[in-house]
């Protein structure tokens, strides 16, 4: 994207009424070409984008990658978020990001079990609120390591602003990439109880069938469900993503590893969806969907190609997946995944309208050179689609973070949330931006989070942006807590909200 000088001063409002700036309608497979879309899809929308690093941490240059977000449905002003951010106090707890004003301002609160000597952070973290109980749940890979193994903790807190450490609900060795979703049952036998689902890759599972969901029907005690039914290449992939509907339907998509070429590192995987129709209490749990081979789990795609050790620019890749269910109709679900197409890492999107039994034969979306797909559906049935695309070549490469939405899966409105340098700052660790970004809906609103280069240059944020940390939009510079010393750009988490 060519840079342009803005007349704006130091007032890069993160809240904008969009249509003129960056909102584009697109047709399937033509994500970058403007096509006249239906009025409903292009109607004006409020967009709020906030750099989440608070003012008191204006000097920080951490690689705050791999973010997730949780909005409290009982009080949407309360929002929690996570990233690979160390405790600024250097203590034995890692921080979460907390907002009490709907995402406009943020504080860091260190309440996640960690270890000072290990950097006061986690090796993986996701967060989710239940629907009505005000309880925040987290799934983490806890540091320090134990006997050379990753260590799963599932956590909860009823007070995400307090200083009390989150309660450890599950502590298990040998588990990777926990991904938590939660809801409070509004009817049936589980009415009023928190239903928590944590997808993970559990290396302790027998026979290499490692795709796993830890589930709880009371927010306290968990049981382990193995959702892989087929032979694997020794294990499944790390991505296991639950998606919950308020009627008790719970889907999950996972990256089912099938073959491995040791000479090239190339692998194949099936993109598999499982379903349970009663909060995971089905018999067997998550066994409601069967494929043509008679086994549990519908294979949306078979023999998807990828390389677990590959990169998209500085960002490692390895087969991201995401899933969302329509809150207005639990029969409607969407799946997104990434694979390698002719050597190019590519994101795909498909839809099912019959509870996952069949899926659209063709992709609703195909986005080349993209990663970190994240999906959500709002209460109007509008699908939201977040991804980060690498564009350009060499030193001019940029990561462009898109949020697109559509009410029919065919005609899309595209908002560019950020268009930032892809090669600066230098990478501190993997993942550079994260193995995932996050999107969710509440009512008609979409809330999301992504990580990106934090240079305060308004041309990087065509829909506006708000910074809490000290900055100078005119000079496109970050400033230290003294308001004068220039701070180098780094990777920060950005919160966004799109109100349709």
């Amino acid at each position: 994207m060519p840079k342009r000088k803005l007349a704006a001063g130091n007032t890069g409002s993160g809240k904008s009424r969009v249509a003129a700036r960056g909102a584009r309608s697109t047709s399937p497979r033509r994500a970058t070409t403007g096509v006249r879309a239906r009025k409903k899809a292009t109607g004006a929308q409020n967009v709020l984008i906030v750099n989440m690093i608070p003012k008191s941490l204006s000097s920080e240059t951490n690689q705050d990658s791999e973010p997730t977000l949780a909005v409290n449905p009982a009080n949407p002003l309360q929002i929690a978020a996570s990233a690979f951010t160390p405790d600024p106090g250097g203590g034995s707890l890692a921080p979460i990001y907390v907002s009490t004003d709907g995402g406009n301002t943020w504080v860091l609160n260190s309440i996640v079990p960690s270890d000072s000597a290990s950097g006061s952070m986690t090796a993986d973290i996701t967060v989710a609120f239940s629907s009505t109980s005000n309880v925040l749940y987290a799934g983490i890979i806890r540091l320090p390591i134990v006997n050379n193994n990753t260590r799963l903790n599932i956590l909860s807190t009823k007070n995400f602003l307090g200083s009390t450490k989150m309660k450890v609900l599950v502590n298990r060795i040998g588990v990777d990439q926990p991904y938590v979703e939660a809801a409070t049952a509004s009817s049936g036998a589980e009415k009023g109880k928190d239903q928590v689902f944590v997808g993970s890759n559990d290396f302790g599972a027998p026979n290499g069938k490692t795709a796993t969901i830890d589930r709880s029907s009371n927010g306290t005690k968990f049981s382990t469900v193995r959702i892989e039914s087929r032979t694997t290449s020794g294990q499944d992939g790390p991505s296991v993503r639950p998606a919950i509907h308020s009627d008790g339907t719970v889907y999950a998509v996972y990256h089912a590893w099938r073959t491995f070429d040791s000479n090239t590192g190339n692998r194949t995987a099936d993109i598999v969806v499982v379903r349970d129709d009663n909060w995971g209490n089905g018999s067997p749990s998550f066994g409601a969907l069967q494929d043509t081979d008679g086994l549990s789990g519908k294979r949306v795609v078979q023999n998807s190609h990828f390389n677990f050790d590959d990169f998209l620019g500085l960002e490692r890749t390895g087969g991201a997946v995401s899933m969302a269910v329509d809150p207005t109709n639990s029969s409607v679900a969407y799946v997104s995944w990434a694979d390698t197409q002719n050597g190019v890492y590519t994101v795909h999107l498909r839809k099912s309208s019959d509870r996952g039994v069949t899926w659209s034969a063709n992709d609703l979306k195909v986005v080349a050179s993209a990663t970190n797909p994240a999906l959500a559906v709002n209460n109007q049935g509008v699908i939201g689609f977040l991804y980060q695309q690498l564009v350009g070549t060499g030193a001019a490469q940029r990561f462009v973070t898109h949020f697109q939405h559509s009410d029919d899966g065919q005609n899309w409105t595209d908002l560019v949330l950020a268009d930032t340098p892809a090669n600066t700052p230098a990478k501190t660790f993997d993942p550079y931006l994260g193995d995932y970004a996050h999107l969710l809906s509440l009512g008609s609103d979409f809330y999301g989070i992504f990580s990106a280069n934090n240079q305060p240059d308004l041309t990087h944020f065509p829909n506006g942006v708000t910074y809490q940390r000290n900055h100078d939009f005119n000079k496109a510079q970050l400033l230290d807590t003294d308001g004068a010393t220039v701070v180098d750009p780094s990777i920060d988490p950005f919160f966004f909200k799109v109100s349709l």
Partner: protein
Amino acid sequence: MPGKTSTNDVSGEAKFLFKGTIQKLGASTLAQVPKNEPTAIVHVDEVLHAPPALAKTLGKLITVKLAKGTKPKVGEQVLFHANGWLFGGSVAVESVKQEKPAVAKTMLAAQPSDPARNLADRELHNRVANADMVVEGEVSSVHLPQTESLLAAKAVNSAKPVSEHDPKWREAVINVGVVHKGDPGTKQVVVRFPSSTDVQWHRAPKFHTGDRGVWLLQSGQGAPAAGAAPEGAAGHAMAATAIPGAAVYTALSPMDFQPANKLAAVASVIRGAVEPENA
């Protein structure tokens, strides 16, 4: 004044030691601080030791969640032993212990001026004290551990899990010049280190042939045994590949390797931590 165990530091040691003056009780500089917390707005008069983010609060007003049972008065100057709590437009810290100013003056007289350096030195002192062995030397070679070598040679997909958090272990052989603590028993020690750049391992020092400095070594921590025990098995029998029969150590904290060109700045801290044990 009584203290309590901090919820933000299970060791009970405060990261933020500062002298401050109470400005207002029951108030906060941050809207996000819960109203029912026993807080005070405090002016940070002097910082003794602190992580960099808290060292920057010198001269500013911050919020202190007071240590349980303490009742300082407005205008009173207090030495706070605290840990970070909330970082937002301002900062809130949680006091785990409060002392009278007279104690503060005594302690201040003995402290160098850089509070972040003071904290780093204190933590390095503790790390040395807890190390199994402290040696000075040079990396003579770097190897794949036996398990990794076998897998590479066979080019097979073993039972070893494939994860983005794979440490990708390597072994560095160190020619030991000086032993500051412990007894390696030989002129060489083997340090197993993760070469992975994953978030879980990026802070761990990576070693290359020719690296010189001081290593703070731990035995039986993190790294698996070479050859036999599958990863994840508890109670590793630590055996080296690079030097058959030798014990394997790890140095996983950034503090565990002090390169030669920075030794001058930390030599006194290391000596101070080692000498009491060697005396």
